[in-house]
């Protein structure tokens, strides 16, 4: 197992001293070179969990191991792509990607070569010397993906990376990620609330309950690979998986809605 989370519990204390249980007895595992998605209603703790795997937050109970090592701080072995734009605005595209190699011992020439390769992989050749402010949202996320991948992390964590993009751009980015992943086969843990996105990209999908977040269902996506992004949704198997997941998630969204659970600002 690449990532193994056992009995994760996390309670957030709000400012008014109320306590919110974000996660309870949450178990998850990701195999080597596996693409695993977590979907669930807003506020179910899926992003909090990803933060814990990254080492940016910690569980109150349970343990998270990556490659058998207990996670207790952030590290370059767990790359992360956020929903918001996180490029360093004072660095060009190439310099941003190269930033992902800061902690490696490679020769300068070796680094340049890797940077060029990954910029090509995300289709941004020709934009090496452009600053982030000159890029569209989709292009910025492509740079962020290249930057996270270039250091060859053991696992890539993606927290709704396309959530801020418009619908068309999102489709293009999903297609691109599918293509990149099928070439690189990096272990990925992907958080989203988009069911189609999860199915088309993943090998396995965890569906979470409304808060407190637990695993409601674990669904294997046995669509053959390599997948053709724009054809996948016409596959009858895709349709039945979509129906199954949407029904499961609807129950939870309704529960969350009835309970009036707004996402508290942690």
């Amino acid at each position: 197992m690449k990532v193994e989370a056992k009995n994760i519990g996390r309670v957030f204390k709000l400012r008014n001293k109320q306590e919110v249980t974000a996660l309870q007895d949450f178990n998850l595992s990701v195999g080597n070179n596996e693409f695993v998605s977590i979907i669930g209603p807003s506020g179910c703790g899926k992003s909090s969990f990803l933060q814990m795997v990254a080492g940016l937050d910690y569980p109150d109970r349970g343990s998270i191991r990556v490659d058998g090592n207990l996670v207790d701080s952030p590290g370059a072995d767990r790359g992360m792509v956020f929903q918001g734009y996180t490029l360093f605005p004072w660095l060009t595209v190439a310099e941003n990607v190269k930033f992902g190699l800061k902690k490696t011992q490679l020769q300068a020439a070796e680094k340049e070569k890797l940077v060029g390769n990954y910029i090509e992989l995300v289709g941004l050749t020709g934009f090496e010397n452009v600053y982030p402010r000159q890029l569209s949202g989709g292009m910025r996320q492509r740079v962020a993906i290249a930057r996270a991948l270039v250091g060859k992390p053991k696992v890539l964590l993606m927290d709704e990376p396309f959530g801020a993009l418009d619908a068309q751009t999102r489709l293009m980015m999903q297609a691109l990620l599918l293509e990149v992943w099928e070439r690189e086969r990096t272990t990925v843990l992907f958080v989203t609330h988009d069911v189609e996105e999860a199915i088309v990209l993943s090998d396995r999908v965890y569906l979470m309950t409304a808060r407190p977040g637990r695993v409601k269902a674990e669904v294997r996506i046995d669509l053959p690979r390599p997948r053709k992004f724009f054809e996948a949704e016409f596959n009858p198997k895709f349709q039945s998986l979509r129906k199954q997941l949407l029904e499961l998630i609807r129950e939870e969204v309704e529960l969350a809605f009835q309970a009036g659970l707004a996402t508290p600002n942690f």
Partner: protein
Amino acid sequence: MQNSLLDQDDLKEQPGKRRPRLLELHRDIPPGIYWAAGMGFIAIFLLGWVIITGLGFVKPIFLPSPGAVGTEFIRQIQEGILVKDVTASLYRIMTGWMISTLLALPIGILMGSFRFFEGLFEPSVDLVRYMPAVAFVPLSILWLGVGDSQKFLILFIGTFFQEVLMIMDNVKTVPKELIQTSYTLGLNKWEVLKDVVLPAALPGIWDTFRITLGWCWTYLVVAELVAANVGLGYRIMRAQRFLQTESIILGILIIGLLGLISDMIFKFAARRLFTWADRQG
């Protein structure tokens, strides 16, 4: 649609009737009009000055004519007074501001980055920053005598305590996600501070430099209030004693002009230094 804010609609419905609109909320106007308005305002002001003094509405002792101020300007240049004054004042301002900035920069960065340092320094800084710098003049003479170091101290008191809080705020505006990303790329907190927080906060810090240096110019007269025998502020205080109104006005104008020039230098440098940033002020 008559009151629509959109030009396109107007164009479609009322061709040929579109007038340039100067008073729309937050709307750009032609740059020519923008500059002409500013210059025109100054011109009207000067014209008013010429008329009031030229027609003898006020006595020259209350408001001398622009010509008299010009004559005073030439006199001060010819006698070498102006160069000496400007040199002395520039030296004091630059030194006072540098001392303030060299201390405010590291302390402000620490306060903006670590809650501990914010908690440690903020109450005292908040307390001192409301104390009037003028009130420190007698004390500063008592402590440091009548030399330049007393002027540095007054400029420091006037600038530092605001500057340190502004730099703290500049550092705090660095997005949290930028810091988190850097951690996931393997950097430790000192590397994040050096390679991410600092460059990200730099345009804002630069703007703080610009604003605080401007304040130093306004504190110059306070710094040269007593115990000075050269400097632009001193010249104004001396002219007051002899009721040389034209010398006072000249001093004020020169301080204003030099302040404006230093401001423009910082703005110009920012445009060169931070080409990557979205927008400069």
